[in-house]
């Protein structure tokens, strides 16, 4: 189980916002935790996949993509906040994320 250090959430948030700002050509100041990734930013599954790869490398995570896919079916990701929270859980639980209640 991965350990979340002080500042990890802020670091994840910064990465997520910076990523969508660049990908969707939207100024960072116009993206908040409440921003809906699909409706407001026209984000897609390829972007989501790319973001997961970024975090995988950044934190040296070990997870199978299909594990995250199964998690997302049960816990749909819509907002920037959803992505941040899910990323924190992936860092903590990696392939065991679906064992969470």
């Amino acid at each position, binding site marked *: 189980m991965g350990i979340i250090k002080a500042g990890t959430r802020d670091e994840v948030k910064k990465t997520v916002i910076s990523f969508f700002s660049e990908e969707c050509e939207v100024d960072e100041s116009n993206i908040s935790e409440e921003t809906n990734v699909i409706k407001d930013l026209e984000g897609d599954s390829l972007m989501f*996949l790319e973001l997961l790869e970024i975090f995988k490398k950044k934190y040296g995570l070990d997870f199978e993509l299909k594990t995250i896919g199964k998690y997302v079916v049960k816990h749909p990701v819509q907002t920037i906040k959803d992505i941040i929270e899910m990323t924190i859980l992936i860092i903590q639980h990696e392939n065991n994320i679906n064992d969470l209640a």
Partner: protein
Amino acid sequence: MEKFSLIFPAFGIDYLGNEDQIINNYSFDITGYFKKAGKFLETNLNDLKKNDNELYSQIDVYIYCCIISDILKKKNICPSFLAYYSMGIYSALYFSGSITFEYGLYLIKTVYETCLDFLKTNEKKFSMALIIGLDYEDVLKLITKNNLEVEIINQNNRYNLILSGLLKDINIIMGKAINEGALKTKLIPTKIPFHSTIIKDASKDIREKISDNDIKDSAVKLISAHDQRTYYKQGEIIEEIIKNISNNINWLKTFKKLLSLKYKIFIETGPGESLTKIAKFIEGDFKIYAINKLDQIINELISV
């Protein structure tokens, strides 16, 4: 100067929405191309622009690819390789001077109608689908385990696969793929299971309808999306047009072959940015530009 390759997208892509505006910046008359196509296909321009017609939507992508090709040619942008994704072969051949604009239209129409006629003898319905998030082995296991009449006909990158097969089974596998952890599945709006063995006999009929006199050697080397062979001779081109209809393709291998040949710059020569997006998941040291970066790439290549 870095060697660069043009890459031609297939049908069924998402448009950026500002393609006309980008093309207009180069003072190209889009309407002229569409009028020519309308005349050739004996249909009016308004019908041709309708997106609910599968053949016309294929023609639409082809026309945009040809226009962008002509812009690049006018700017003396000379690639040393041409790669194509699926039915992007026709626009690659147009760029290379192997076929005329009209003969490309003829080939697209002939392939579409011959495949459709061939499938009419079969009461079953067919289609294609995209699966993102599962790897090749996972999808293959799902097909085998559920005894589905579906083929994996292309691998775009590690987690992006294209399937062809029976519509009923395509729908089943899309559902099962989501349960297995796929991030996305999408039905591709086509009645023809391109690149699958299902239409192998139709491709034989198509050969008889291709006139050897209308196809010339290519001025630029091409790479086969099917077996990554490089070619440019007329006979090889005809053979490849046929193989490209019912043989599996592999975009990942095609792109990797270009990287192994030291190509580091790629220009997506068509509407949308589908190949540019796919390339983000292919490892390597390269740059890829979609039509929305046309100004940038033209300036960079001209200034070298």
